[in-house]
């Protein structure tokens, strides 16, 4: 079965237990707490922070209302980062997680550019930098354990243990059973051709800091070019050889004309 998260952000209580569990399991350094207009900390994902809870304050019926957004890798079914990587440092495992093999990476950062969700982060300060991002706790999954964030989540926000299809069915059921409670969209169902992480939210997804991402399977966009390369090779070789033969014959004819002329003189 392919690993999948159903993340129902209406259930999130903003405890950030997932953030802490993620840091602990991955032994990632803590970030210095920074004051910002929001309560979010660390303010953004970075090379030491694979997941965070983004805090959004809004007004609902005259009351302050909190909305929480859980950020992290979506583990796309057909990931752009995997297709972008020139040395296969990033791979999509058969279990579902997109994982990184640091010893191959040349640090070109094309994966970062390619990701529609802006997930891969880089260790800019290090002399031997790595790409860093959520691993879906691949080692834990191989060990029949559930990912650290899901294990720790006390409110049932992060659900793990069902297939993508079942999670999608469950997400659709929640949407139809609770009219008005949710923004009527499963983020990740179609984005970038579908992802292993499905999100439900009360607010429109773009108000929670998520990118508007098209439905296109992103690797297909570059594959259209790459798969055309044999045809390009054929056309260029045919045109090059053809023009060489034709123009050479013209030149030879000119030279023959010249020798004929000199011959008659």
């Amino acid at each position, binding site marked *: 079965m392919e690993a999948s998260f159903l993340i129902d952000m209406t259930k999130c209580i903003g405890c950030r237990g997932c953030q802490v569990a993620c840091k602990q399991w991955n032994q990632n350094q803590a970030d210095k707490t920074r004051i910002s207009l929001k309560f979010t900390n660390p303010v953004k994902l*970075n090379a030491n922070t694979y997941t965070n809870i983004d805090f959004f304050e809004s007004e609902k019926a005259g009351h302050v209302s909190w909305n929480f957004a859980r950020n992290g890798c979506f583990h796309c079914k057909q990931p752009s980062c995997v297709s*972008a990587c020139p040395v*296969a440092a990033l791979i999509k495992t058969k279990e579902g997680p997109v994982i990184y093999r640091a010893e*191959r990476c040349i640090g*070109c950062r094309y994966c*970062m550019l390619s990701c529609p969700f802006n997930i891969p982060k880089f260790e*800019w300060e290090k002399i031997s930098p790595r790409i860093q991002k959520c691993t879906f706790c691949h080692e834990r999954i191989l060990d029949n354990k559930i990912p650290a964030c899901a294990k720790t989540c006390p409110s049932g926000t992060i659900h793990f243990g069902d297939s993508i299809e079942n999670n999608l069915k469950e997400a659709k059921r929640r949407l139809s059973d609770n009219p008005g409670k949710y923004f009527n969209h499963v983020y990740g169902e179609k984005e970038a051709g579908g992802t292993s992480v499905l999100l439900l939210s009360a607010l429109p997804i773009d108000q929670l800091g998520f990118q508007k991402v098209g439905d296109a399977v992103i690797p297909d*966009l570059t594959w259209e070019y790459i798969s055309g390369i044999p045809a390009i090779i054929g056309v260029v070789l045919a045109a*090059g050889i053809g023009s060489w033969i034709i123009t050479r014959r013209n*030149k030879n004819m000119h030279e023959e004309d010249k020798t004929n002329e000199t011959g008659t003189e």
Partner: protein
Amino acid sequence: MKPAQNNIKLFTPVTLGLLIVIIAGALVVFKKLTLGTVTTNLQDDFPWGLWIGFNVLGGVAMAAGGFVTASAVYLFNMKKYKPLARPAILTAFIGYLLAASAIFLDLGHPERIWHPAVMWQVHSVMFIVAIHVILYTTVLGLESSPMLLEKLKLGGLKKIIEKGMVGIALFGTLLSVLHQSSLGAVYLIVPDKLHNLWYSRTLPFSFLVSSVMMGLAMVSFVSILSSKFFKRPVNMDLFSGLARGSIIAIAFYLVLKIFLLLNGAGAAAAFAGSMESKMYLLEMLAGVIIPLVLLLLPGVRNSLGGILLVDILVIFGVVINRMNVAIFGMLSHAAELGVKYFPTANEIMVSLFLVASGALLFKLAVKYFNVLSYEEG
């Protein structure tokens, strides 16, 4: 024939200026290699900057003169352009060496630059790009080798390479077509990030066509400057021929760009007054529309000064196009993520270092090898 290159002075004020930039830049290169990417303003939400936009994309486009000339001389048998082949191919060779250096410096792990050669990943455009940089730089080295071999008095080896030149030129043209277009294909992967004034499925084709335009301008530019700096006689016929080629390439590119604009962002987007629309108009006016109008005037087309001006405009315009795709067209997406990008002094110094190195290498090659006065059939 007395070798003309002896007349070229080694130390001139220009050379001195280049040397100062190179020495100062070399210190910054050392700093980047020892401290890493922290010396740049590159960041998580803006991973590629000046080096990729200007030195790699711009540099590779500027090297297009190599394949344009090689295919004209060796595949289309336009032998009258043969005097331009050596400077054009040498320019391309230097251009590729510098673009490869820029990639080397940009990488987080420069010491692993060889990985793509052994760790194939054929679904990656970046892999395609890497393979082409390796192969085409080798081909350009081969194409440039006769001038080194004649200096080393290795006539036999030179003859073998010259015998195979048509094949080498054909392979080089093939690699160039693929490499120029694959650099456009690199950006097919960012449909949600690159501004729609530039994003299109035909990016590979636009890059290829504009590189031909750039190639013609570069050959002409380098040859005119060489004739001025190194006091070489000018064959106006060649430059008029290049200008006629430019008219065709620029006109074709203009039609393509208008078609893409109307079928993409729409004409209104080009005049929206945004930063992107201004950059788009700059690229189109300076690099495409003004040069085309100028070239259609016989007075400009038949004067060396006029052609030089057009060359500069086209080179500037295509470089702006590459920087628009790599940098300016990506800024509004970055702004949504709360990020700005402007290169650090380090990044700018390294860029200048690479440009100055290219100019100095070209000058040294012209002084010590038979680059400009090679006119044998």
